[in-house]
């Protein structure tokens, strides 16, 4: 009797001990580098330089800056290009990869897709700066064939959403393709075979079986890509440096926030923009999670 009750008492004292230990380190880091800075930013957003409560004055100041609405427009346009291309190409390429019958080709392609993501963010942007300059680019013939003879012509303001999408896709999509490939592997072969016996072709299998079963992974990708996309910064900032100001100096909201903090010495308004980005990210994530049943058990 005694031996039978002892383990259960131990479990009662600290149920799920291993699980707690696993997440403890993450929670500490999350609090230190996620929650505390967020609370600090929210404090700044509602106070002035003298630490007095400022209501929404910082938000009004940000919104009345002449660059604000153009930055909102730039980020919105970029998000549209980025999210659409991400979903379409990542899912499409993962499906193609999954259909490859050659194991060696599949492995090689997965590695190939993943490599750009392994480059640090700023380094991969620098690679693109070379690619986009017709005088040094290894694909200058393509640029010239498209009518671009100088770097200035390539980085014209109208081209920036597409350029940033290309850079972001190249640096970030490879990992997602590998994730989607893994997700496709979890679909039971019996299900796919049943579909085939019922007469479904490649397209129908993908559209009616595989993509619906990938829904949660796609939602997860969109939530993270959206939050990352609203924080667009490195690409325009580096492009701005490389083009000596021709492109992207205050293109995105994050750059505007950076300018407020370090050009105008106005951290309160900078924090207000950061808080806006936080609210947008949280609301959109909430809507996606709620509408997709993301956390429902299957």
């Amino acid at each position: 009797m005694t031996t039978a009750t002892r383990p259960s008492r131990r479990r009662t004292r600290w149920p799920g001990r291993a699980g707690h230990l696993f997440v403890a380190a993450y929670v500490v880091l999350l609090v230190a580098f996620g929650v505390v800075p967020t609370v600090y930013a929210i404090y700044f957003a509602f106070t002035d330089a003298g630490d007095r409560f400022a209501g929404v004055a910082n938000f009004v100041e940000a919104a009345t800056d002449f660059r604000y609405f153009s930055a909102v427009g730039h980020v919105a346009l970029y998000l549209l290009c980025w999210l659409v291309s991400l979903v379409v190409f990542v899912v499409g390429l993962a499906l193609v990869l999954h259909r490859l019958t050659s194991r060696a080709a599949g492995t090689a392609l997965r590695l190939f897709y993943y490599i750009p993501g392994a480059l640090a963010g700023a380094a991969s942007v620098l690679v693109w700066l070379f690619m986009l300059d017709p005088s040094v680019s290894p694909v200058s013939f393509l640029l010239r064939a498209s009518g671009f003879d100088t770097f200035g012509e390539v980085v014209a303001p109208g081209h920036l959403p597409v350029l940033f999408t290309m850079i972001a896709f190249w640096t970030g999509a490879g990992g997602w393709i590998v994730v989607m490939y893994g997700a496709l592997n979890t679909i039971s072969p019996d299900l796919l075979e049943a579909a085939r016996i019922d007469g479904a072709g490649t397209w129908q299998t993908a559209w009616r079986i595989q993509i619906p079963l990938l829904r949660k992974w796609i939602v997860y990708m969109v939530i993270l890509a959206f939050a990352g996309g609203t924080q667009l910064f490195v690409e325009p900032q580096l492009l701005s440096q490389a083009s000596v100001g021709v492109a992207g100096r205050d293109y995105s909201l994050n750059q505007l926030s950076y300018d407020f903090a370090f050009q105008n010495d106005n951290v309160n308004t900078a924090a207000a923009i950061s808080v806006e980005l936080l609210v947008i990210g949280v609301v959109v994530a909430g809507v996606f999670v709620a509408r997709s049943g993301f956390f429902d058990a299957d």
Partner: protein
Amino acid sequence: MTAPAPGARRSGQRRRRSAGLVLGVAAVLAAVTACGNGGSGTGAESGFQPVQQTGGPLTVWVDSTRLPAAQLYQKQHPATKLNIVTYDGDANGSNYLQTKVSLFNRTRSGWPDVVFSTQNNETSWAVQAGFTAPLNKGQIPDATLSGWAPGANDPCTVDGTLYCLRNDLAQTVLWYNASLMQQWNYQVPKTWEEYQALGQRVATEHPGYLVGTAGDNFTPEIYLWAAKCGANEITGPKAVKVNTTSPACTRMATLLDTLVANRSMSTSSVFSSDFDKNSGDKILMLPGPSWFGGSIFQESLKTPKGQIGVAPMPQWAGETAPSVGNVGGGTWLLSAHSANLKDAADFLTWVTTAPDYQGQVAPGYPANTGAAKAWLAKQTASGYYAGDITGPLQTAAAQVWPGWGYGQFSQEAIWAATVTTGQTAGKTIVSLLPDWQKAITDYAKSNGYEVSQ
């Protein structure tokens, strides 16, 4: 097995869903806040009160070009311990210094004792942020300070107090290829009218050759500053007068448009790889700052010895007062937080005046007149240039038009984002002058300036 009651199942789903929402929100919160901002500066513009002077090593921030200066000082002054840090020198308006000072102000430590910056407008924020120490209030003797070229330290002066020392001047002159001029029997133009006429001749007689470039970010400083275009007159600590559509501006903009149209003027930057490749050996004339000789012709384009000459910048016909523009010329700042002001001031004085550095090693025309003489003597002795460079450079050093100031907002960045992009889209500079006016006004206002016309 007992199936859970329907109510319990719904409740479980709700809990999972709420937990999911909380987790989702937390994940997004963490992702979004990873880029949170922090820190703001302090405004300490009032009287200077040094911190307790405890001595100790000097922390000196320099760019890679000024690294030999700090190293040479260390060699000649072994008793002073230097902690030399290289950074980008705020090149291309990177705002690195301002960013770091803003953070140091918040953490109340970390400021360097002496900083070199390639930007002339650092005092526009550094004084307000309480970073810079006044230099003409006992730190550096007036007799030493009187050795700078007239107007050289204007960018460093706020309300009569000097807050930095100019390292080098970047007065503009007319660089030209003396060999080609002689070969083609052309006269070096003395007026802008002659300059334009020569550009039109070059376009027909020697297509492909250039009389200048209008594709740099400092195009406004080379041409429109020299033309006395009042686009950037700083009239007070936070006041600027902007008028980009005056006859002085439109006349020069028309000249640029004319020469760009006939392709005798490039629309590439002298620093771009395509300029180097396509136009490097096709330069007949190139109006530009004093540092073009070393940086562009000698280092970048590797123009052979004995070809490049210097002439005064052209003037409009009938003008009596000559004027030139200015493109850069770095500054040295002394930190108000330094606990070793004596050694810091000594370093500052040495680095800006010593013939060993400014005369022999420095790449640009020194702002200190004594050092400038030594520098000119060395350049002349090198035999690289064709003809006399001393006269035109010395004369131009005192001719920089004072109607163009050094505000906190970057004129180069505004020009690049407004006029250069417009030019790339096929518009003329004249047609872009109102856009330029609006952009300067907008940026000035967002930096807290009062704007007048």
